[in-house]
């Protein structure tokens, strides 16, 4: 799957957004999954095969997405629900979508003016990796990679306006 890379323009115009996205993600995992995310010390590899997306509309238009392996998403669901990973079934996508939803909401609530001026869509979850996300021409992106149980998760904010 092809995803946007971090935009120098966006980083320059909103230097606090990257750290805020990082904090927003960590808070969701700490409060809802009782686990701490780590910063990878070396570049991560592995092909993500599940993606959750939530649209943002209003003063900020774009898409928040989280990508990881299906195994990691299953572990997230098991931690959220407090059950063994092997007992996770169809609720995997529901849980993964909710995590993305909370990350998007938590992020926008941290940005002055966005809490009231930006609405979220319901989450969408895509499984597999054989697809490309085509951003619109004027888009910019933030991307944060963290380790969940030593496996990478990639959180992206693709901004359209």
């Amino acid at each position, binding site marked *: 799957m092809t995803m946007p890379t971090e935009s120098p323009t966006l980083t320059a115009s909103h230097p606090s957004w990257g750290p805020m996205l990082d904090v927003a993600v960590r*808070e*969701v995992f700490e*409060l*809802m999954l009782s686990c701490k995310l780590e910063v990878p010390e070396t570049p991560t590899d592995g092909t993500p095969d599940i993606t959750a997306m939530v649209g943002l509309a209003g003063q900020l238009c774009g898409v928040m997405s989280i990508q990881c392996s299906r195994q990691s998403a299953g572990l997230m*669901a098991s931690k*959220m*629900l*407090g059950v063994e990973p092997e007992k996770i079934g169809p*609720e995997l996508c*529901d*849980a993964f*979508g*909710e995590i993305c*939803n*909370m990350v*998007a*909401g*938590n992020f*926008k*609530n941290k940005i002055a003016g966005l*809490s*009231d001026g930006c*609405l*979220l869509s*319901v989450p969408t979850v895509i499984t597999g990796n054989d697809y490309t996300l085509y951003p619109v021409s004027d888009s910019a992106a933030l991307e944060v990679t963290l380790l969940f149980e030593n496996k990478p998760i990639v959180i992206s904010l693709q901004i359209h306006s």
Partner: protein
Amino acid sequence: MNSIQALIVDDSSVMRKIVERSLRQAGIELSKVFEAGNGAEGLAVLAENRVELILCDINMPVMDGLEFVKALAGVENAKGVPVVMITTEGSEAHVVQALSLGARGYIRKPFTPDQVREQVIPLLTVKA
């Protein structure tokens, strides 16, 4: 505190389970928990059942949480029942609107059982 019946309205079944678990972790004894995937389903539950607590998301298909809270004014089984919104929507406008429509509390996701306890327990011990 006696055990209570609660209604949890959220379009995510995972979140409904997490909210129920958080209520139990907050020390609230639940004799029965009704679940609904949207406001319309929540109203259908209340047409047949009396509960002592309602927890409700805002962003839901079919009937959202604000419409649901508004509709509760005409529901006999919801009279005097505290409603707490649990949602990712943290906007001041949503909070004000929900409270003006009759919600008694507001919890932002992500949340901890302590936050649930702080919001919900006072509503169960002091009747409206």
